C-alpha cells in the first residue's frame, strides 16, 4: 500500500536477471519484483472492487444515513426488501424493458449486418453511421427521446394526430414509459450489435455462399440456412451482453423520467431503485441490501442463460454446424 516500494524494486531487477537463468531457482527478490510488476491491478482491484463489495455486504446489515453512526439491524433490510412492492416492481419493469428492447434490437442488428455484408457501395460509411448512436451522449439522447415521446407536443403524437389517430400520453402510461425507454436502448445498441454480427459474418467461409448460389438458393434461404446457424455463437454472445446491459439499465430511465421512475414508478429499473434509495433517500443500508438482492437475481438469470448456451452449443455440435 505504500508508494515507496515500487520505486525501489526496478533498481534491483536488472542485477537479478543477470545471475539467474533457470525457471526453478528464482530468488525471493526476483519473485517480489514480479509480483510488484503485476500488483497495480490487484491494488486497484482491492481498493475499488473487492473493498466496496465486502463493505456493501457489511452495510446491508446496517441502518446508515451516510453521516452518523451505523446501527446493526441484522436481516431487517432484507426482510423489508422482500415486502417492498416497488422492489418487485422494479424487477418486473427491468425484465419487461429488457424483453421489449432486446428482441427487436438483435433482430434489426442481424438484418443490418447481413445487408452490410453484401457488396454495396460505401460500406464503411454505413458501418460508421450505424455505430454513431453508441458513442452519442446518453443524456442528449434522452432529451431528444423526451421530445419525441412528449405527452402534448411530442413528434410521435403529432404524427399520430396527422394520421387522425388517438394520441398517447407516452410518458404517463405504464407501457408508454417502457416503450420510450426501450426505444432509446434499441436506437443506441442496434448498430453496436450489428458491427459484432458483421465481424461474425465475415468469418463465415465465402465458399458456403458460393456453393449456395450455385445450388440456386434464394437470399432468404441463404440467410436462414447458412448465416443464422453459423452465427449462433455470436448471437448467444450478444444475447448475454445485452442481458448484462439490460439488467444494468439506469441512465436512460433516470434522464427520461427522473429518479422516481415517473408516474407509478413504471420506469423504475432495479439499478435506478438502488440509486434512489441510497443516494436520494440516504438509506445506504437498504441500498446495499437491494444491491445484493440484484446479485442473487442476476446469478439466477445467468444460470438460465448458461443452460441455454450449453444446450444450444450441444445441439450445434450434434448437427455438426459448429466448425
Amino acid at each position, binding site marked *: *500500500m505504500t*508508494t515507496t516500494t515500487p520505486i525501489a524494486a526496478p533498481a534491483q531487477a536488472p542485477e537479478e536477471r543477470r545471475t539467474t537463468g533457470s525457471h526453478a531457482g528464482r530468488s525471493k527478490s526476483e519473485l517480489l519484483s514480479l509480483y510488484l510488476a503485476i500488483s497495480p491491478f490487484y491494488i486497484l482491484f482491492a*481498493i475499488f472492487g473487492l*473493498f466496496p463489495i465486502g*463493505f456493501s455486504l*457489511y452495510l446491508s446489515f446496517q*441502518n446508515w*444515513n*451516510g*453521516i*452518523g*453512526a*451505523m*446501527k446493526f439491524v441484522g436481516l431487517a433490510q432484507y426482510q*423489508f426488501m422482500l*415486502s*417492498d412492492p416497488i422492489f418487485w416492481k422494479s424487477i418486473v419493469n427491468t425484465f419487461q424493458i429488457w424483453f421489449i428492447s432486446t428482441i427487436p434490437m438483435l433482430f434489426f442488428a442481424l438484418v443490418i449486418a447481413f445487408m452490410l455484408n453484401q457488396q454495396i457501395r460505401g460500406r464503411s460509411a454505413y458501418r460508421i453511421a450505424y455505430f454513431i448512436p453508441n458513442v452519442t451522449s446518453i443524456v442528449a439522447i434522452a*432529451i431528444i427521446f*423526451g*421530445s419525441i415521446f*412528449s*405527452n*402534448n*407536443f*411530442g413528434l410521435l403524437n403529432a404524427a399520430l394526430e396527422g394520421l387522425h389517430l388517438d394520441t398517447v*400520453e407516452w*410518458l*404517463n*402510461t*405504464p407501457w408508454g414509459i417502457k416503450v420510450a425507454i426501450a426505444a432509446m436502448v434499441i436506437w443506441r445498441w442496434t448498430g453496436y450489435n450489428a458491427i459484432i454480427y458483421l465481424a461474425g459474418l465475415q468469418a463465415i467461409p465465402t465458399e458456403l455462399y458460393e456453393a449456395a448460389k450455385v445450388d440456386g438458393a434464394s437470399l432468404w434461404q441463404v440467410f436462414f440456412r447458412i448465416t443464422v446457424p453459423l452465427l449462433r455463437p455470436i448471437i448467444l454472445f450478444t444475447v448475454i451482453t445485452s442481458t448484462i446491459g439490460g439488467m444494468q439499465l439506469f441512465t436512460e430511465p433516470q434522464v427520461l423520467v*427522473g429518479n*422516481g421512475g415517473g*408516474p*407509478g*414508478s413504471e420506469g423504475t429499473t432495479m439499478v435506478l431503485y438502488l440509486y434512489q434509495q441510497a*443516494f*436520494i*433517500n*440516504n*438509506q445506504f443500508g*437498504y441500498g446495499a441490501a437491494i444491491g445484493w438482492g440484484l446479485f442473487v437475481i442476476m446469478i439466477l438469470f445467468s444460470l438460465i442463460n448458461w443452460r441455454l448456451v450449453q444446450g444450444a452449443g450441444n445441439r450445434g455440435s450434434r448437427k455438426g454446424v459448429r466448425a
Partner: protein
Amino acid sequence: MAPNRRTFLAAASGLLGTALLGTSGCGTRGSYLTPEGTLSLWYWNRSISDTLLAKTPKATGVKLVPQKIGGDFKSKFLTSLAGKAYIPDIVGLNEDVATYFPDADQFVDLNEIGAKDVKSEFLDWKWERGVTPDGRMVGFPMDTGPTALFYRADLFEKAGLPSEPDEVAQAMSTWEKYLEAGSTLVKKLPKTYMMPNVDMVFNQALAQQGKRYMDEKNHFIGNGPQVRQPWDLAVDAYRRRITSNTNDWTSDWNAAMSTGRVASFVGAVWMGQVLTDAASGTSGKWRVCRAPGGAGNSGGSFLGIPKSCRNPEAAFKVIRYLQSPENQVVYGLNEMQLYPSAISSLEDRRAQVKDKFYGGQVINEVFATSAKAVKPVYLSPYDNVIGPAFSDQVTNIWSAGKNPDRAWKDALAEADRQLSHLGLI
C-alpha cells in the same frame, strides 16, 4: 471496524487524491484539498455569484478558495463526510437541510459563533428551517423560494376572467375559487388548460401549510388536514379536467408555456427564470399575483460549517459577508435571480425593477409580500422518504385513474411501512 474503515478510506482517498491532483504541500493536515491557512467553500453552479466570491478574500481578509462542485453535490459531500477526508470548510446545503439534523453534531452550531446577533435581519421562517428542534443552528439562510400565481393576462381576459393582478388575486384568493376559474377557462377556451399538472396543486398547496408530515418530536402527522386538504384539492383539479398533464422539467412543459396551452401555474420565484427561458415569445403577456391559498415557499438553500472546519470564526465571517442584505440584492437577486432571505433586501429600492416580460409589472412586490407571509413549518429529516408515498399516489390518480380513496389508503400504508423501516414507529 469503524475506525479501521475510516482510516482506510482516508488513506485510500488520500493516495488517490495525491496521485490525481499532485497536491504536494499538504503538510500535517493532509485531509484538506486547499493549503493550510485557507478555507475551502463548496457551492454548486448558480448558487453564489462568482463575482462576489472573487471579491470575498479582500473584503473579509480570509483566504477563501471557492470550489464549484458539479454533478451530484450531496453525494459528494456525504462521501467526504463518511470518509472523513477533504471535507469543505464551508458547504452549501440545499432545501433538504433537515436531513442533516440527526447528525447536527457534525456541524458547527452557528449560533455559538455569532449567528444569533444577526437573526433579526432575516426572515424568521427561513431562519428556523436551518435550526434543529433542540436549537442547534446547522444552516445559515441563503436564497428562498416564495411562491405566487403566474398567469397569462391575455388568456384570462379571453376567457372572461379578471386579468389585472390585484383583481385576479382577489377573485382567486382560495384554491377552490382558482379551480372554479379553471373550469370556466377550459369551457371558454377549449385546448387551453388552467394549469400544467395535478401534482402542482398538491405540492404548492402543501407548501403553504404550517405543518407537514412530522411534528418536532418526529411523530407522524401526515394523516392530518394539512396533507388531506392539498390532496382533496388535487383530486378536485383532476376531476375538473383543467390540467394538461404536462410534467415539470420537460420540453413538453416549455412547449406548453410558449404556445399558450397552459394559462397559469403556481410556482416559486425561480420558476420565473425557467418561464422566461422557455417562453420568450410570450413576453409581455404574463403577470404575477398572490397565489391562491396564501403564501408558500418552495426551494431555497443554506450555508453550513462542518465540524472539521479549520477556522469556524473566519468561515462565519465569509458566510456573513456572502449573505449580507446588501450582497443578497446586488449579487444574489440582481445578478443571479436568487431571491433574498434578508428582510431589508426585499424592500431594497434596487429590487423594485419593472419587468418587460410581465408587461412592466414590478413582480418583486408580489414575491416580497409572499416571502414575509410564509408560515414557519417544521421540515423533518424524513420528509424526503415519506413525501413520495403521498405524491406518488397523487400521480397515480391522474395518470392511471386510480380511485382517490384507495390511493389515500395506499399512501398511508406506504408511509407506515417507511416509518417502521426507519425505526420511527
